[in-house]
């Protein structure tokens, strides 16, 4: 057990160490974030002016599709898994993940899967061009030949996610230090336990729906063809049965990160710990019975519209509990605003804006107007960018001193925050307006009256993109050196990870710590 990391690249190929694997997930995620971000910038550059300037509509469609797929499956999900790998064993006092070799396998599948997905850009007929939601029959009868490679890359990404989740659940349920009861676990661990459950429940459904596509395209089945008695709307039902829990997969771990950061910098314990746990579980449960709110305009019976509308609105209750608890934690706290806290506070405010626009979209009759407009784009970017991405960033700044043993540059961190904060609001806030005014999403051209807001959004997008380079530079500098961090790093933070030295030794908790 006392062995340290092997020298050279073999360390990364053969590793069974949760910290190594966590780092690889995080770097991979950042690479995908930049790749998906570049695609977003192609989109924004084209939309800077009405008319067609830079790319052809066919390529524009490939960009919107690949941007979505890469950000969801390549950037956000692996980043959370990376944080889980690094932090969960340290937070629960375990020596490593429960199944270390499978852990390595889960990671290494991803670069191969995304290489396969990205290679479709160079194939005859181009990359998938049917949107990241790949609705049939656009993704079946009318799809480019590369769709087959897309399907199989989704399959192996799913295998990676399922194995990763099994590992996380086994770790949390089986590897906690004595005395670490479930209701003493840090919220990040709780949210990941529930997220992993969601992943195991819905990734197989995604595998099912892409299998149905494969069979319809190549083997003559009729799942999504009305001529044979199937129904294209079936695709949407199965897809969103995966897709809606997937949305929470991308936000529940964020709740956990923010619930760790806010108490530290407010210097108060988290308000309402157990209500946080129950709220997370409620959100996860509700996520299974709201999927058709993505399909209000598809033609559903009125009973369906009403059920999915009310069930969706119900989610506002546990989410409200969470926001209330974060605000109450900060209330009368001795707050300081280091970079992680800035990102966390921005998370609470901006995620709430995204939540409110979600509530607007939940109203079925109103959704008939909003559906497939830029209002939807504004909504989900407000929950994903200042939601998922900001929380990941906050988590990286928060735990980076623990990982590297060095403090990051605080000034540069603050510069990163303000550039990103301004950039994202300038990008996405105007989209609400053009959306409500009727600008459709996923179209490379638009009517003249939308030009002003689109130009503002495009400038914001490039600012947001540039901000990430500051982040990259700051992280690299911190890995290389800098002011030494103490074991506690912050002012009396809670959690087992702060009881080990910084940087955390290669193996932590070979013998379980005592938990009060």
């Amino acid at each position, binding site marked *: 057990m006392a062995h340290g990391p092997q020298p050279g690249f073999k360390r990364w190929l053969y590793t069974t160490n949760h910290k190594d694997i966590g780092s690889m997930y995080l770097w991979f995620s950042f690479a995908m974030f930049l790749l998906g971000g570049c695609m977003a910038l192609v989109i924004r550059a084209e939309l800077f002016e009405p008319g067609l300037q830079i790319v052809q509509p066919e390529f524009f469609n490939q960009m919107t599709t690949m941007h979505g797929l890469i950000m969801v499956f390549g950037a956000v999900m692996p980043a959370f898994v990376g944080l889980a790998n690094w932090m969960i064993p340290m937070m629960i006092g375990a020596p490593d993940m429960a199944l270390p070799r499978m852990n390595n396998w889960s990671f290494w599948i991803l670069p191969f899967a995304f290489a396969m997905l990205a290679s479709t850009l160079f194939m005859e007929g181009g990359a998938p061009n049917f949107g990241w939601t790949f609705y049939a029959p656009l993704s079946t009868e009318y799809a480019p030949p590369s769709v087959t490679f897309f399907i199989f890359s989704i399959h192996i990404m799913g295998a990676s996610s399922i194995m990763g989740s099994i590992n996380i*659940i086994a770790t949390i349920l089986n590897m906690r230090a004595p005395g670490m009861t479930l209701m003493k676990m840090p919220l990040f661990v709780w949210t990941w336990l529930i997220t992993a459950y969601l992943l195991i429940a819905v990734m197989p459904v995604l595998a099912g729906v892409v299998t149905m596509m494969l069979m319809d395209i190549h083997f003559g089945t009729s799942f999504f063809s009305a001529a044979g008695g199937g129904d294209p709307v079936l695709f949407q039902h199965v897809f969103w049965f995966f897709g809606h829990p997937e949305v929470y997969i991308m936000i529940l771990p964020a709740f956990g990160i923010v619930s760790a950061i806010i108490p530290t910098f407010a210097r108060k314990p988290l308000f309402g710990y157990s209500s946080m746990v129950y709220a997370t579980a409620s959100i996860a449960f509700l996520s299974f019975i709201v999927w058709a709110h993505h399909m209000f305009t598809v033609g559903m019976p009125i009973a369906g519209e009403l059920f999915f509308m009310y069930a969706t609105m119900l989610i506002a209750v546990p989410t409200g509990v969470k926001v209330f608890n974060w605000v109450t934690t900060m209330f009368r706290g001795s707050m300081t605003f280091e970079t992680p806290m800035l990102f966390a506070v921005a998370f609470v405010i901006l995620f709430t804006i995204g939540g409110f626009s979600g509530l607007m979209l939940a109203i079925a009759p109103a959704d008939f107007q909003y559906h497939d407009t830029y209002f939807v784009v504004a909504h989900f970017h407000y929950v994903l960018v200042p939601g998922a991405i900001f929380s990941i960033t906050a988590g990286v700044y928060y735990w980076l001193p623990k990982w590297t043993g060095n403090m990051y540059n605080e000034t540069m961190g603050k510069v990163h925050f303000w550039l990103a904060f301004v950039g994202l609001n300038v990008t996405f806030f105007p989209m609400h307006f053009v959306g409500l005014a009727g600008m459709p999403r996923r179209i490379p051209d638009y009517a003249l009256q939308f030009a002003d807001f689109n130009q503002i959004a495009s400038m914001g997008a490039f600012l947001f993109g540039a901000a990430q380079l500051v982040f990259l530079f700051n992280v690299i500098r911190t890995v290389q050196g800098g002011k030494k961090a103490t074991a506690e790093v912050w002012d009396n933070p809670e959690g087992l990870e702060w009881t080990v030295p910084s940087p955390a030794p290669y193996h932590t908790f070979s013998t379980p710590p005592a938990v009060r």
Partner: protein
Amino acid sequence: MASESSYYVPEQSRLPIFATIGLFLTAFGAANWINGGSAYIFFAGALAMATVLWFWFAQVIRENMAGLNSEQLKRSYVWGMGWFIFSEVMFFAAFFGALYYIRNFALPWLGGEGDRGTSNMLWQGFENTWPLYVTPDAAVHGDAAKILGPKEIIDPWHLPLLNTVILLSSSVTVHFAHVFLKQGKRSAFNLWLALTVALGALFLFFQAEEYYEAYKHLGLTLESGIYGTTFFMLTGFHGAHVTLGTIMLLIMLLRSVIAHHFTPDDHFGFEAASWYWHFVDVVWVGLFIFVYVLGA
């Protein structure tokens, strides 16, 4: 002994990266083959994958026999298998859910019933029946239709009933095998496990027979509209899982017969395979009810 009290974290391992390469070649090769390319990459990948799994399981077995696995570590494997089976349940749920939606919503609407009955205006003359002998395509285009329904379907009370009996019995036999293993009666364990494997193979034989009948005489194929689609996809994926389960149990049998693996209180490899077997059995009960009996 230190290894008894602490959790064994394996040294670094080449297995995962080779497994990744195997899986990637399999997936890439499958896509390439389906798109009209050569099949070699797929088979090379599948072979690599099988080889890696062989060595991987061998290593895990060696570690366990060397006493490296504490009680706590063994529980990780138990949780792992349990959640893996849950993911399989959800995979089948997608296809059962599709069948439910087609029969209870999509087809009635296409046939002009219910809230969305206006769908029928696109397929005038189509009537909702199950089994769907006349597809919407056939109802509208007659002889020019591309997607025709099946001429006949499988009678649930012959081969499928027999297969139900076979598979349910095999769940009982594998349970007896487990009981004898726990009592330390190895020859009885081997016998009952062999019987289970034989029943699994027999099930697969009859399933193949049924498919042959369907294709040869009944006009029931993967391409015969949504009935054929749901029938073959559900029973086909189940059959694939029975095949895998039979192979798993066969390997457990060979491990016991040849290598004398498993002790009365340490045999999770076998137990995991038997869980998997019970799981495919339960899926079959669902299939027999919802695809065969209620589908006839």
